[in-house]
Each structure stands twice: as structure tokens, then as C-alpha cells.
């Protein structure tokens, strides 16, 4: 059982993303203030947070500071390590600890991984995609780095609300899927709006000489989707859930290839 080190915590902030509230507590109020600034727009006043983390500020003490992220599960406890942090939490008690230096990049990574694992169990996922709401509907624009996520987000017209230019938050709902705003930013360095809407379409981005939308067959869409989903766990149950979620998503949400030129005209096709 993990200890929740409440004693010594002088300050805390609750960060709510996609309807899931995570309370982060630390002894250093300056660090917590930094988090409040970083996650402004996603700071919640909810008293009943879904997860509670205590942050120990200091060197994480990992063996290899250049190591890639490692996510493992043992006896029901998740352990996450990267060169700059170590974290562990118990899904059953919804409590955990993070050991990191005072920066927001480390806790950003922990939150992404936490949410990706939570969403995987609910049929949702985090996706390398920009997303925006227009006319009450959410549109996702997926692609690897350089595909145009930040570009198309930057070209969004005034009547579109940006949810993210980097990591889209997809939740399964009774009616289909919804996209929620996230504080996870890409090159735009602008947090998304903390709102959500039903997903109307997923576009796979490609830059080209003319704006064009072409439907993508289901199997190809699922492959493209899977290649853009943030997924960290080497766990059979989670892999099965991920594959199932991707196939479900492409069977319920239209997936198209959006080839676009680098000007505002592409948004004439969206919404």
C-alpha cells in the first residue's frame, strides 16, 4: 500500500482534464503556484478529486537519466519512470506519489500517462492530434510530428474553439465519442479551451497542392489511428482494450484524409 504523504503538504491544486480531477499536493507552495499557472483553465475547485498525488521535489534517482518512459504494473500498482521523474499509483486507492525536480514537464508526462491508462479502460484514448469545436461539433486532425497539427490549429477561424494543437482527449460516450480540451500543447504553446463536444470526424492530415477530403477505409483508418494513439503500457489486457477501442472508433466516427494547402481556405471544408 502506498502512503499518501499528507503531512507536510502545505499546498495543493486540483487539475481537471476530461472530467477527471487529479489533486496534486506538495510541500513547496511555489511549485504548486507554478502548476496553477501552467494548468490555468483546468484548475478545479472540486473537493472530491478522482486521484490524489503527492509530489516529492528532488532528484528522481532513476538509474538512467536518458531512459525512455517505462510503464509497468505490478500487484495492481502502476509504476512510471523516465529520466526526469518516477511515479507510482494504486488505481484501487486512487493515490500515488511523484518524485521529480520542480518543473511542469515531468508532471505533464505523468498526467498524460495517467489519463491514457484511465481512458483505455473506458474505451477512450489520447491521440496525437489537434482538435477544435465548430458549430457544436468536434473535429480531430491527426498526424505525426510535422504533419500539420499546429499549422491547422493556427489557421482555425474565430468561430472555432481550439481544444489542443497536440494531444486530443477522446472519451467514449453512449452516443459515440466526445473530444475534450486539454492543457497539453504543441508548438502553438496555447492550452486548449476546457470544453467538450461530440466528435463529428477524424481527419488524417497531409499537406498538398489543393484542399481535398477523401474517405479512408476502416482497416486503414484503424491502422492510422493506432499509430497516433498515445499508449505506454506493455500489458496484454490494455493492448486488447486499445485495439478494440480503435476498431470501435473507426466504426462509429467518419475518418477521412484531409489534404490541405497552408492557408485559411481549408477551414471552409470543416464544420
Amino acid at each position, binding site marked *: 500500500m502506498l502512503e499518501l504523504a499528507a503531512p507536510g503538504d502545505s499546498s495543493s491544486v486540483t487539475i481537471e482534464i476530461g472530467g477527471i480531477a487529479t489533486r496534486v499536493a506538495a510541500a513547496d507552495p511555489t511549485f504548486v503556484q507554478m502548476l496553477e499557472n501552467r494548468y490555468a483553465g483546468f484548475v478545479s475547485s472540486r473537493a472530491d478529486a478522482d486521484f490524489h498525488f503527492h509530489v516529492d521535489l528532488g532528484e528522481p534517482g532513476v538509474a538512467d537519466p536518458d531512459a525512455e518512459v517505462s510503464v509497468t504494473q505490478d500487484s495492481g500498482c502502476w509504476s512510471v519512470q523516465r529520466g526526469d521523474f518516477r511515479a507510482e499509483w494504486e488505481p484501487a486507492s486512487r493515490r500515488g506519489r511523484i518524485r521529480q525536480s520542480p518543473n511542469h514537464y515531468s508532471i505533464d508526462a505523468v498526467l498524460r500517462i495517467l489519463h491514457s491508462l484511465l481512458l483505455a479502460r473506458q474505451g477512450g484514448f489520447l491521440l496525437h492530434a489537434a482538435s477544435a469545436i465548430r458549430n457544436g461539433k468536434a473535429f480531430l486532425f491527426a498526424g505525426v510530428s510535422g504533419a500539420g497539427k499546429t499549422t491547422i490549429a493556427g489557421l482555425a477561424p474565430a468561430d472555432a474553439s481550439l481544444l489542443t494543437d497536440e494531444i486530443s482527449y477522446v472519451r467514449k460516450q453512449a452516443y459515440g465519442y466526445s473530444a475534450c480540451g486539454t492543457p497539453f500543447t504543441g508548438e502553438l504553446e496555447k492550452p486548449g479551451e476546457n470544453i467538450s463536444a461530440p466528435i463529428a470526424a477524424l481527419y488524417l492530415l497531409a499537406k498538398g497542392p489543393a484542399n481535398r477530403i477523401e474517405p479512408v477505409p476502416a482497416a486503414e483508418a484503424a*491502422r492510422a489511428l*493506432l*499509430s497516433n494513439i498515445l*499508449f505506454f503500457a506493455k500489458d496484454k489486457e490494455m493492448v486488447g482494450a*486499445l*485495439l478494440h477501442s480503435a476498431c470501435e472508433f*473507426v466504426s462509429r466516427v467518419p475518418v477521412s484524409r484531409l489534404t490541405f494547402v497552408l492557408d485559411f481556405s481549408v477551414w471552409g471544408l470543416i464544420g
Partner: protein
Amino acid sequence: MGVDRMSGKLYVARSSQIAARKLDGEMMIMSAVDSTLFTLNETATVVWEAADGSTSLDEIVASRICGQFDVAHGEALQDAGELVRQLAAHGILLVSEEPIPAQGLAKKAGA
């Protein structure tokens, strides 16, 4: 490993460390070890679905490949041997010269 030995019988079975799903007739397989995604063509899917650990590759080729596709047995067996070697190298298929017990094997994926 006798994967390249086509003279003796080989038995193939789906690994338990995978997740598989058939979509639009295309088999998608994800490794639970490293999350690598594999997609199989029509013939490879036939071999995959028949890989129950108790039917030899030779029998699978004779009854499922040659019966369904216009291909000579020797050529089909050679191609199937190469396929199972590749899938075994990625850990998503088990290959043995003896029947493979069903315990711990993956179930056949549904559509």
C-alpha cells in the same frame, strides 16, 4: 527451431501475448510485448486463423490454402513457412515440431 525444415511437420499456434481483431476482412494483430501492430493479408489470415497448435502447417496449407487459392502445394508450403518464421520472430506465433498444448494460446479473433 525447425521452422525452415519443410520435410518434417510443423505445428503453429497463436501466442497468448497478443490482441487480434479482424476489420473489413483484414486481420490486425498487436503485440502485448512492444505494442507493434501487424496486419495480415488474406492468405496469412487463413494460416493465422487455423494456427490452433494441433493442426500441422502442412495440413493447413493443403486444406485451407490450396483448397481456397490457386497455388501449388510446394510453393504454398514454402511461403507459409516463411510467414510463420517471420511471425514467430516477432513473438506473435508459436512454432514447434510437436503439437502445442492449447493452454495459454490466444483465441481466434472475431470481426
